């Protein structure tokens, strides 16, 4: 993975998000540099996932700027946002969000096929990724018959399919048992170590300490603290 080490890839400036009377984010400013692994932590409902959604272009801020990889997301149309996600963002969800109707290989290949890559090329790349993640033998299995860890690895492979500049993970170990959680943590750590910029949203202190080199604490929609970490390998 090519990394422009030290370059700002995410910049949030005074971002606010309101849902009716509820203030989910209240003037959040944040920068993430290329190659960083940042963990966003905080209690439930503090605005962590909203913050992640803003960066991924899944939701729009009520006020403030979100710039990712030099793209001002507020200026993009829905289609523009979709193309942006395709090229720049890989997402991992707590509950995997795989398509139940497609086997693992097709789930992974789908991300590339949406960009117009041929089916053959997409499958080859998907198989490489599944192989790297140790689940190539499960390529024809449907999500329903995969274990939680396997599903999350398929989700990671899908997220990496288009070589994203930024990998976003929302509670990636939240739905996994401890063993599967460990495996996913190792995977994320490995990815970051080879230069993948990573933004994690998690409750899990262990995951943050293991994978992140910076922790951003959020409470009541505001950033209330930041600290750098020496990762425990």
């Amino acid at each position: 993975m090519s990394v422009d080490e030290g370059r700002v890839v995410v910049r949030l400036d005074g971002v606010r998000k309101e849902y009716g009377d509820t203030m989910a984010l209240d003037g959040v400013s944040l920068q993430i540099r290329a190659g960083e692994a940042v963990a966003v932590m905080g209690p439930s409902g503090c605005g962590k996932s909203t913050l992640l959604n803003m960066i991924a272009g899944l939701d729009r801020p009520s006020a403030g700027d979100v710039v990712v990889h030099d793209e001002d997301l507020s200026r993009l149309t829905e289609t523009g946002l979709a193309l942006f996600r395709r090229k720049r963002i890989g997402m991992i969800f707590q509950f995997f969000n795989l398509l139940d109707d497609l086997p693992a290989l097709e789930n992974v290949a789908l991300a590339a096929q949406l960009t117009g890559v041929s089916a053959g090329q997409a499958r080859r790349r998907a198989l490489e990724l599944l192989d790297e993640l140790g689940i190539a033998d499960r390529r024809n299995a449907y999500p329903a018959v995969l274990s939680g860890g396997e599903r999350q690895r398929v989700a990671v492979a899908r997220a990496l399919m288009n070589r994203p500049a930024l990998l976003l993970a929302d509670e990636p170990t939240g739905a996994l048992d401890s063993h599967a959680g460990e495996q996913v943590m190792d995977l994320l750590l490995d990815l970051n170590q080879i230069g993948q910029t990573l933004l994690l949203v998690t409750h899990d202190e262990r995951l943050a300490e293991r994978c992140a080199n910076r922790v951003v604490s959020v409470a009541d929609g505001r950033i209330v603290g930041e600290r750098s970490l020496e990762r425990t390998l």
Partner: protein
Amino acid sequence: MSAVWRAARAAVRRRKLQTVVIGIVVLFSAATLVVALRLLVASTAPFEQVFNDQAGAHVVAVYEPGAAGPTTAPPGAVAVAGPFEQVVLPAPTDTGMIYLPDSLTVVGRADPAGPVDRVEVWDGRWATAPGEVVIADLPPAAGYHPPSQVGTVMHLRDGTALTVVGFGYSVSRTADAWVAPAQMAQLHPTAVEVLYRLRGEPAAPTVDAFTAALPSSGLLATSSYLVIKEAVAAGPGAYVPFLIVFGILGLLVAVLVVANVVSGAVVSGYRHIGVLKALGFTPVQVVAVYLTMVSVPAVVGAVLGSVAGEYAARPLLSNAFQGLGFHGDVGNGLGVQVTAAAGILVVVLLAALLPALRARRLPAAEAISAGSAPRSGRGLRAQRWLSGARLPRSVSLGLGLPFARPARTALTVAAVVLGVTTVTFSGGLATTVARYSSIADRNETAPIAVRALNPEFQQGTTTRSDEDIERLLRSLPGTRHVTAVLDKEVAVVGQARAIRVVFLRGDRDEVGFKEALVEGRWLRGAGEVVVPSALLHERGIHIGDRLTLELDGHRTEVTVVGETMSASIGDPGLLTAWETLQRLDPQEPIANHDVMFQIAVTPGTGIPAYLASVRAADPGLNAWDNAGVNTFTVSMISLSTTLSLMLGVVAALSVLNTVLLNVRERRRDLGMLKSIGMTPRQVVVMTVTSMAGLGLLGGLVGVPVGVLAHRFVVPLATSAAKVDVPRALLDVWQPGMLLLLAVTGAVIAVLGALVPARAAARLTIAEVLRTE
């Protein structure tokens, strides 16, 4: 407020779209059901219903004045009315807008009521004094209010003035006009009529036996109610089986569609059911919540639909049954409305109950996970093949979705198949009815009729012979085909009663007779006859038989070469070439006014202008537009078209609902696909493609099913009613029309998918992924 009601009310509020769809589907289904039931009730022995309502006369006997017979009621009669004095008079000519037959049977009667033949006075009042007359006519159709003709003064040949004081309807057709008994003395009655009502619905032998037992002294003639019944059954009554098929189809479609929509709504709510259980709702309460939830829109829909159905049914039935020769009063149908509303609610509750009971047995956790736990995908090969196909991924994904969920796919396809089958079948039936009408009255082919005025009744008659008239008509601009038609009562050797024979001259192949062939072939020359089905059955005649016709002592042999549809009112007649008459009796005198000419005009020729040109060419000719006379055909076609449209709307709603549910179920998947970079356009394309594929499949299955059903059911219904119809009535399909129908399923599915797909494409992904 109970927890059940609170939960149900909340569910109704949360599922506004689904609630509205259920309400609309139930509304249309209830309306269709009311129309269908009203149709079935009215179509079941319509003649008998009206006949019994009026205490119709099974036998009308006409005696010489002063005969002893009328005073004695023979055994077998349950009621007798009369004797009423009677006279047959030439009709007055100054009748204004009132249509009267050439010869008018006038009866003196003090009262329209009585034990037999209760005449329904539908406009004005009964004649109570000399100088007053009540005219026999059908009441106008419901909703149609022509200006009243009461007050019209007409003059008989002897100068007697009669004022029309009312219009009455007698299904027994006992008179053309009624006057007060005091008026009759002045009209010089020539006979008396006595009306007999027998027990039950007497068959021909009973009627014959009764007639034979009547005192013969002074008896001039008798007529049986079976003649009127036969005329109705063989003519316009042939529509009754079609109406019954429409009724049954409406019934089935309404029930199936409601069952499909409601059960789909409950199945899509399984997760909600799990949540309710987790909250502590007992299984019975869960079922109650769901029944209440679907009952709210269903009750509203059923009540409004029943009322709407009644409003739709009344004018349709009134028009149709007036066309069938009965009065247009079709009652208020309150019983049918209540039955339909209650019936549809029972269907709704049963359709909801079955899946709700299944959900009741599910453990709460399993029910909750019904909407979110991973399902095991299917159709790996299809998915892989589509994934590798040279198609945009959004299209191949859409096409692959149905393979992944065969059960849901089957449900969707079933809804489309039902819809397309219904539209195909009902559309075919409507076309069959329209074609039947056009064959039956031949007015579309040859809309103009011309006849020389009768010197006995009318002034300004022509001196031209019938052949000269034909030549004149052929010479007029705009004439395309002319056929001369002459009716004669002819004896057939070996047959007890004479038979009406219709002699045809000129373009007999071109004015619509040929299209009515059921079996055999059309006439090629002299010595051949084509026999109407009714006559064929009644007289035991077969194709290939040789008959000997006898007229004024002359005989000729004819061969039966074909069977034609019985559709005309009156006695059915043998059709034969004019040359047969010349063979039979070349000297037979033919009055020019005995011959009617049926004329087809060239395209672009205006009928009013053509009629004017005929009258201008010879003022002694009466020319009229037959096409405008038969409002019955129009009402029949409008009835079948309306029913077809109603069924189509109900079926389309069912497809729309299934597609809506389908797309809503996929909201999470759509959100996920957007999160990995699927554009809104791709979301729409994928969703629409998945449903279009199913719609097309449903269309491809539904069209042949509809065609087969039409081909199977129509002959079944017509043969059950002992009505033979030409094969042409079944060949109502054009390839283009079939293609259009096959695509209809896809179009409905696409339209149904487009709205929720566009909404899903616009959804905020974060919201979808959070709420699912």
